[in-house]
């Protein structure tokens, strides 16, 4: 059954879905970093905002765009698994995490450190 589903997955569609998801994660990271910086959140509060914004954007993608079935749209190209798809949505890559840190530091510095 797995081989059957694997051969039915159309790779270019999967690829474009995955890069859209990456863009969404990146924009979420950047804008939540900017928000954290503007609000002057520090330490744990900032990271908490990042986690909450990742969760909220993943939930929005699943329910508004995937109709509750993310395994039909994203995955690792070999099987259809909801758990795998949701993990891919939720885990921000290292790139996005550092992007969050960058915009957080930038906005925090501009607004709260400089007069």
């Amino acid at each position: 059954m797995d081989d059957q589903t694997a051969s039915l997955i159309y790779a270019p569609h999967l690829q474009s879905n995955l890069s859209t998801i990456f863009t969404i994660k990146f924009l979420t990271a950047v804008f939540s970093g900017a928000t954290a910086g503007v609000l002057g959140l520090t330490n744990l509060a900032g990271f908490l905002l990042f986690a909450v914004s990742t969760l909220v954007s993943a939930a929005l993608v699943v329910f508004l765009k995937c109709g509750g079935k993310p395994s039909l749209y994203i995955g690792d190209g070999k099987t259809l698994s909801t758990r795998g798809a949701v993990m891919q949505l939720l885990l921000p890559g290292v790139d996005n995490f550092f992007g969050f840190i960058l915009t957080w530091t930038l906005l925090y510095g501009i607004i709260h450190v400089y007069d």
Partner: protein
Amino acid sequence: MAGDSLYLDPQIRDWVLFPITLVMILVGVLRHNIVQLIASSPKKLSRAATREQRALLRAQILRSTAKSSPIPPSYYDSHTDELTAAFKAGNYLSKPVELDQDGKPIAPNPTSMLTDPAAMEGMMGGMKNQAVMMIPQMIIMGWINFFFQGFVLIKLPFPLTLGFKSMMQRGIETPDMDVRWVSSLSWFFLNWFGLNGLYRVLLGNDNSAVNQQDLASSPFAGAAAPAMGQPQDYNKLFTAESENLQLAQGVYHWVGEDIDTRILRRYGKLAA
């Protein structure tokens, strides 16, 4: 002890913070464009060599979709038979098989890395890319160290351990300033890591501005390059492929089998 917030001149923000970020973004885009410009065009294979590769590819595609194959049995069987016969007879080989004295085929000996021109070009391309990546980083680091040294640039919104003090506050010799006040070089590092995501969004997925520090990518890339340089022994590959085709024929299943029954059942015309 100084109050929790130092007062920083806004000119530092205008003349250091923004310029460093802007320069790094622009240099990243520049790197990507340069890599594209100096990339040598892929080597053109002769018609016979291309036919070899494509024949192998056709067989692989046929095999991999065999379990829920979109082509009906008559076509599948005729494709398989034709490919198997062609592989066994060596019709697609670009160079005829050399036989030694006993009549056994000689495998082509893999030419070494330095003599095979294709492998050399692959290596040169890899090294050129590495150079293009590394040189701008070195230059920017030197520029920052020269011009922007010795003052506090920004305060990090999150705490770090004391171990980071020497790295983040290089050039500022104060023993008990909070580690959160950092120098320009650490702003450079923050930018370096943080802009990767931006490059991937701006320049598309396989851009050359991203710095690949993954443990996985460098040894793998180094190992894959010499493997591709050696000429493949297509005769062996063809014999292996013909056996695989026979195996695949065993698991072949057409998606359209019994489709008339399935449609009737779905629309309720037939008892399930």
